[in-house]
């Protein structure tokens, strides 16, 4: 199936025109570039960025914790100033604190807290449940909180230390709904070290927000959880919240989401506090990758595309378009016009191709002309022979001879002669075919000689020595009769004696030899030389030889022997 597909694609590609191929090749290269870029991005850049982010996260978390702890230790210092304050101690120690004492205590509390940030309200409890407070905004107080033993014990158990809690662990809440971070401690008598009161410093949630303020960005958000894993200060997407799983590990982080929407979730138990900071960071690679680098990559891709287009244009202008035009011009040859291509093409390989093609056409045209000329001369020679015989001279004289026979001889002889004449002409024209079996050639000669004998008083004697196996070989028609005619008119009749014409067909090596022998007057050397000359009267001979030469494509097709006054012998050598 796969192989099949590959083959189909291959076939499709190779069936495309050159232009199309180049186009598809470029598209493929551009696609490959982009794919490669994405691959590099995912598996190298992304991975290193992710590692870097994960590592820096831990540091960020620790630094947030330090920020918070440092603020809280500031608050702790402030609380020590408060516990050491005489007005506050007086208020806590007096059995019956009057308005004056409480007023003094509040003044001290204002004075001391004034210089510190984040203080939302301060509550100072006597052990008898009376209390004074200063506050920023409206804070609702649970009046009976001191009666809750568990709440109080937990603070007392800190033994002069502080504990932290959200909204005073249920003692306070702000009317605005904003959470408060409560700093709570027992106040001991300086001398006896016995608990004399309780102090709660409520801090606004700014203390939490400020601890990570510098670290947040659009892609990075922090959230505080209390020790009950309740979100303290912010609203969070419930779907995202469900992803945040906090356990007992001090620090942990994980990545969620898909490649293009990746988030890193992390949390950190801040030491000395009941708080847990959680961070959600969106991986934004475009931000991680410097924009200069992005520009360079984009530029590189653009350059690549531009250079590909330029190469494409070059190929189109200098290669495919000229080839296309050349092909169009060459297509004319399909319609049978072997005309040369007259295009203006650059003087490169394609120009050379055109020139070679033109040269080839010239050569082909020459060959065709040659062939045509050969064919013409061959046909002319054939026609000459036909004309020579069909011409009325032979026919009319023969007819007169037969007319005489009709008057003087038996009707049998007349019938025989007319039949011979008919046979001769039928074979002679041989249905227009160019080649006929040797058998037919011989038959033509036999009829011809029979008719000539009638005309010339039996001066001719004919003999045949034929190899039966060769008689069905086809030869160009009418190669024998002209030679026999020459034997009569240029050989035997000039001698004034009865003459012999002998036809021999035999095989020697790879040649069929068709030999015409006559015991006529023969030829001297000069006549032998002249026989192949154009102006010779017996053109029957020359035409016949030319036709045989052309038909078999070789020069050496005959041998002529003669002795003056004795004989002439023409030996045609026909290749088997």
């Amino acid at each position, binding site marked *: 199936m796969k192989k099949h597909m590959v083959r189909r694609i291959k076939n499709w590609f190779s069936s495309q025109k050159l232009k199309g191929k180049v186009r598809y090749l470029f598209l493929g290269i551009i696609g490959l570039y982009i794919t490669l870029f994405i691959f590099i991005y995912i598996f190298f850049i992304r991975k290193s960025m992710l590692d870097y982010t994960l590592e820096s996260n831990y540091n960020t978390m620790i630094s947030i914790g330090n920020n918070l702890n440092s603020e809280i230790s500031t608050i702790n210092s402030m609380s020590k100033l408060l516990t050491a304050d005489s007005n506050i101690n007086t208020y806590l120690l007096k059995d019956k604190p009057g308005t004056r004492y409480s007023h003094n205590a509040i003044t001290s509390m204002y004075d001391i807290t004034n210089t510190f940030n984040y203080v939302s309200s301060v509550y100072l409890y006597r052990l008898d449940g009376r209390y004074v407070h200063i506050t920023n905004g409206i804070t609702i107080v649970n009046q009976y909180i001191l009666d809750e033993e568990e709440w109080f014990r937990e603070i007392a158990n800190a033994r002069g230390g502080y504990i932290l809690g959200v909204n005073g662990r249920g003692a306070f809440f702000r009317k605005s709904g904003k959470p408060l971070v409560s700093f709570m401690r027992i106040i001991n008598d300086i001398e006896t070290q016995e608990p004399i009161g309780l102090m709660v410093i409520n801090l606004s949630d700014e203390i939490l927000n400020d601890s990570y303020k510098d670290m947040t960005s659009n892609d990075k958000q922090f959230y505080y959880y209390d020790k009950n894993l309740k979100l303290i200060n912010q609203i969070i997407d419930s779907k995202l919240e469900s992803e945040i799983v906090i356990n007992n590990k001090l620090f942990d982080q994980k990545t969620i989401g898909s490649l293009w929407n990746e988030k890193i979730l992390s949390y950190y138990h801040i030491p000395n506090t009941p708080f847990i900071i959680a961070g959600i960071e969106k991986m934004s690679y475009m931000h991680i990758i410097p924009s200069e680098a992005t520009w360079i990559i984009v530029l590189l891709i653009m350059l690549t595309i531009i250079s590909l287009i330029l190469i494409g244009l070059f190929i189109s202008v200098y290669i495919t378009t000229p080839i296309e035009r050349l092909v169009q011009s060459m297509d004319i040859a399909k319609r049978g016009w072997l005309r040369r291509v007259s295009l203006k093409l650059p003087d490169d390989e394609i120009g050379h191709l055109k020139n070679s093609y033109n040269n080839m056409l010239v050569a082909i045209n020459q060959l065709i002309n040659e062939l045509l000329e050969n064919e013409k001369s061959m046909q002319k020679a054939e026609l000459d022979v036909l004309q020579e015989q069909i*011409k*009325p*001279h032979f026919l*009319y*004289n023969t*007819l*007169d*001879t037969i*007319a*005489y*026979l009709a*008057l*003087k001889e038996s009707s049998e002889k007349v019938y025989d002669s007319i039949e011979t004449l008919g046979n001769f002409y039928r074979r002679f024209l041989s249905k227009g075919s160019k080649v006929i079996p040797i058998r037919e050639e011989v038959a033509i000669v036999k009829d011809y000689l029979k008719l000539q004998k*009638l*005309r*010339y*008083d039996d001066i001719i004697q004919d003999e045949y020595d034929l190899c039966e196996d060769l008689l069905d070989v086809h030869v160009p028609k009418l190669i024998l009769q002209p030679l026999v005619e020459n034997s009569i*008119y240029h050989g035997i*009749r*000039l*001698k*004034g*004696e009865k003459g012999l014409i002998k036809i021999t067909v035999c095989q020697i090596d790879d040649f069929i030899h068709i030999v015409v022998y006559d015991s006529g*007057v023969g030829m001297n050397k000069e006549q032998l030389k002249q026989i192949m000359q154009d102006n010779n009267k017996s053109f029957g001979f020359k035409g016949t030889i030319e036709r045989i030469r052309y038909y078999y494509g070789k020069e050496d097709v005959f041998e002529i022997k003669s002795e003056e*006054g004795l004989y002439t012998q023409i030996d045609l050598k026909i290749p088997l």
Partner: protein
Amino acid sequence: MCKVMIIDDESAIRKLLKITLEKEDLGLDIVGEAASGIEAINTIDNYKPDIAFVDIRMPFMDGIEFSKLAIKRYPRLKIIILTAFNDFEYARDCIGIGVCEYLLKPIAREEIRETLTKLMKEIKMEKKEEEWEEEIEGSSNSIAKIKEYIVINYQNPEINLSSIAQQYGFNPSYLSRMFKNKTGIGLNDFLTQYRMEKAISYAKKGKLMYLTAKEVGIPDPNYFSKCFKKYTGKIYSDYSRSSLFE
């Protein structure tokens, strides 16, 4: 009566023509035949024809050549050229030399009759004006000169009684009679005799007949062999063969 001679190399055609003419019954007398122009030159003086049928295509001396000679020697002789249609170019030459009648082969009786009728009328008119024979006196010492002329020119196939008569200003018939009176042999016979004697000597040397024929002024070997046989009573080849064995 008009005398007719037929000169054609094909005996069948000669015979056909002869039969045709006899059947037409135009008052013609076929006095002689010849199978070639050479034979005709040698025999025409014996026949003295008024009309000659001449085939245009013959070996050794074709119809045109013969006609040229004949017109020169026998100005009153009417020549009818026999030709096949495609010899028309040939036939045009006939007009050039003064022959104005020709017949196309194959022979058509109608045409022959028309042509002959026309010619016979002309001949009748001419015969009224002058007779064929006209006596011209010649000196007897001419005979020796004529003999010498023959000895020198016997190889020329064109010489015959008429040409010699013309040469020496005699009427051919007169010359013939005078020659016979003085020498006891006809002039033509003398010429033939001389040629044959030469031929015999060649034959004895084993020379091929057609070459001997050419050599002695009868280049038509067929006619030569006829003459040879008539003169010697033997066939040339027998003569040359037997002489070779001697």
